[in-house]
């Protein structure tokens, strides 16, 4: 199985194809609904003013995300009182909710991979080809198992979003994923959606 450590080069992104299992290591940042909406509105579309400290977060994120990976995850974290953070449970959340934002965020911050579950749609797939980046599918619900691959919590941004929605900088080792959307227009999700629809149409045509 291929092992990849961030930062990831464009050449490596282009090598990855749908169906390939990968073990990911290195630095990545969690981000989900509140984070994507905030990044787009504050720094990309600029429809809202940055608040105190936001510009510093932006500078930090630019460094962390360049060539790296965004993980759609709302973790369970211990050590909140002492700030000795530890990931207790950290499986992927459903990615499709970030469909309006993902490609623009990846392009703006030069992010090379996104990890989530359930796959994403046409806009993101187009972004995969253009930026380029890949979509890595983690195993939904395998939260204790995946948390074990999180070696270290580097820091947390936008804690006011709440623990699940905050952006956590983490260092991981051998995080198991499968490429399900690649930079050549391949999407396992589109394939399964179409083949299952064909079966459904056949089932619906049968008499009760």
């Amino acid at each position, binding site marked *: 199985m291929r092992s990849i450590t961030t930062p990831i080069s464009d050449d490596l992104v282009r090598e990855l194809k749908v169906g390939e299992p990968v073990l990911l290591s290195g630095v990545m940042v969690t981000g989900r609904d509140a984070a994507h909406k905030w990044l787009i509105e504050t720094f990309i579309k600029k429809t809202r003013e940055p608040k105190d400290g936001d510009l510093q977060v932006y500078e930090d994120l630019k460094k962390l995300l360049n060539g790296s990976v965004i993980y759609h995850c709302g973790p369970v974290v211990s050590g909140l009182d002492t700030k000795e953070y530890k990931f*207790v449970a950290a*499986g992927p959340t*459903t990615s499709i909710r970030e469909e309006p934002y993902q490609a623009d965020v990846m392009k703006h911050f030069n992010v090379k991979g996104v990890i989530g579950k*359930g796959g994403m749609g046409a806009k993101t797939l187009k972004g995969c080809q253009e930026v380029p980046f890949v979509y890595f599918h983690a195993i*939904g*619900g395998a*939260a204790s198992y995946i948390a074990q691959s999180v070696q270290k919590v580097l820091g947390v941004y936008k804690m006011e979003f709440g623990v*699940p*929605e905050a952006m956590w900088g983490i260092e991981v080792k051998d995080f198991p994923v499968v490429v399900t959307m690649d930079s050549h227009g391949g999407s396992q999700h589109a394939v399964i959606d179409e083949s299952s629809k064909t079966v459904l149409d056949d089932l619906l045509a049968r008499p009760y």
Partner: protein
Amino acid sequence: MRDLTNDILELIRRTSSSLPKDVEERLRAAVEKEAPGSAARGALETILKNIELSRANSTPICQDTGTPIFYVHYPEVCCSTRKIREQIRAALAEATKRSYMRPNAVDAVYDNNTGDNLGGDDFPYIHFEEVEADKPLVIELMLKGGGCENVGRQYSLPDNNLGAGRDLAGVRKVVLDAVQKAQGQGCAPGILGVAIGGNRGLSYTKSKEVLFDKLGARNADPKLAELEERLTEEANQMGIGPMGFGGQTTVIDTKITGLHRLPASYFVSVSYMCWAYRRRKMTVWEDRVEYD
């Protein structure tokens, strides 16, 4: 009535970290049906490792510890439902501190997370049901994650797009449609809770309530029992598979409940439960608490 806060805390710990055996057995059987080396088989193998690890370490099976849904069956002349509610809420806040639960209650208007899983009067959701005086107090808990909750669907029949009329043939069509639309988003392989009839709210509530039953328990009505089995079998023909990677097992079981409806309405509600089907119950006897 004695204080049950610690016993309820233990119920929450068990529910979040230890998957019921009947679910685990089905997942173990599902592994064998997938081709060696396939992504589907890999997904199920990871799922099984995760189940063992969570149980051994008392860590959440899934980081989305879900909507806590409590069903309290209390014998008449036993308990104060007000006190039970207080104890459930105290136990849930403590469970959140101990990382058995993720802080999951977000104010929908102001967007702030309360941090302790308590939000207004309705988070957690607690349903009280009185039972006969000689029955023990039973508290059931289900944790249902947001990913699978989001792929639930409600249909109002007739549905012209699907050619679904107001009968069991129509019910079959819309349930299969819900499975196809869910793809792997609800963390397949899933379990379907289906309610036929009721008003919109009741229909959804009952489609979740059936999920408290054991896997394989069939509806007493043979017509519905047959449809339950048929839906599971036909859903699996679609080949969506674990995590939507493609594969043999998309749905593990289907549970249907039939309600009464108004002449004008015919709702079919489908609640999709992810593979991390967390449900447990505690029975309070005079001298001990039993966990199932």
